[in-house]
């Protein structure tokens, strides 16, 4: 089951790890383009954590549903 919590990060600060045909994209919500593409999901998650600067990281499954929601430690 996906680990969840109520998000406290502003929506435009949340960072998503999203499946792409050619790997995994890291995308900050509100940006029009993904920040970076990774071949491996775990590398993408690490990249998302760095980009998030402490805000929520939302890791998606291949179907778009939520695998894991890493809540901002600042706001928990």
């Amino acid at each position, binding site marked *: 089951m996906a680990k*969840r919590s109520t998000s406290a990060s502003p929506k435009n600060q949340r960072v998503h790890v999203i499946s792409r045909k050619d790997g995994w994209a890291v995308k900050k919500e509100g940006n*029009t383009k993904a920040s970076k593409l990774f071949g491996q999901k775990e590398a993408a998650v690490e990249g998302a954590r760095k980009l998030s600067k402490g805000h929520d990281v939302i890791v*998606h499954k*291949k*179907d*778009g549903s939520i695998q894991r929601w890493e809540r901002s430690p600042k706001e928990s």
Partner: protein
Amino acid sequence: MNSPDPDFSRNVFINCPFDPEYFPLLRPLLFTVLFLNHNPRIASERFDSGEARINKICELIRCSRYSIHDISRIRSKKRGEYYRLNMPLELGIDIGCRLGNDGVLQSKTCLILEKEKYRYQKALSDLSSSDIKNHNNDPETIVFQVRNWFTELGLANAPSATRIWERFNEFMADFQEERERDGFKDRDLEFMPVPEYISFIRKWIAGNPSHIT
């Protein structure tokens, strides 16, 4: 003949399985149709045990200019399992509605989706000269196929399929968060009636107009 429904040109009849196994494809399919400002019409949008299902389906087909038929479940996966005949049946009714009528109903257009590109030709050889699209059971690919079909039909200014897919993922986060805040559990989300899910997408799109870029 007059238009059979005021929303005829925006209605999209969705002919696909509505079981949990198909939900990973159904969710992005419905999201894409709504994101592109069209109106998905499904047989379960109103539940009346006293209404004959086939009559309801014929009505939905008649009031929809567009149809999306996913025939990827026409093949059983294991011994003893029945293959699904509802989808080919409803595809046939849709084609018959177009060919057997005059006027606006002749403008009906459909997208046929399959898992693999040529597999359907063995089961539905009458369609072997038709152009169908495959999704490989991949949720992202179904967004690409549906989006590109709409643009091939002339829809202008559609966001890229990548953009729609990313917005779908963002929607899924909000969907889960809000439903759980309202006390929904995993099981409630998994078996949520499709009309309720459609209603949530509509609300989300209305509240997130930034999707029009």
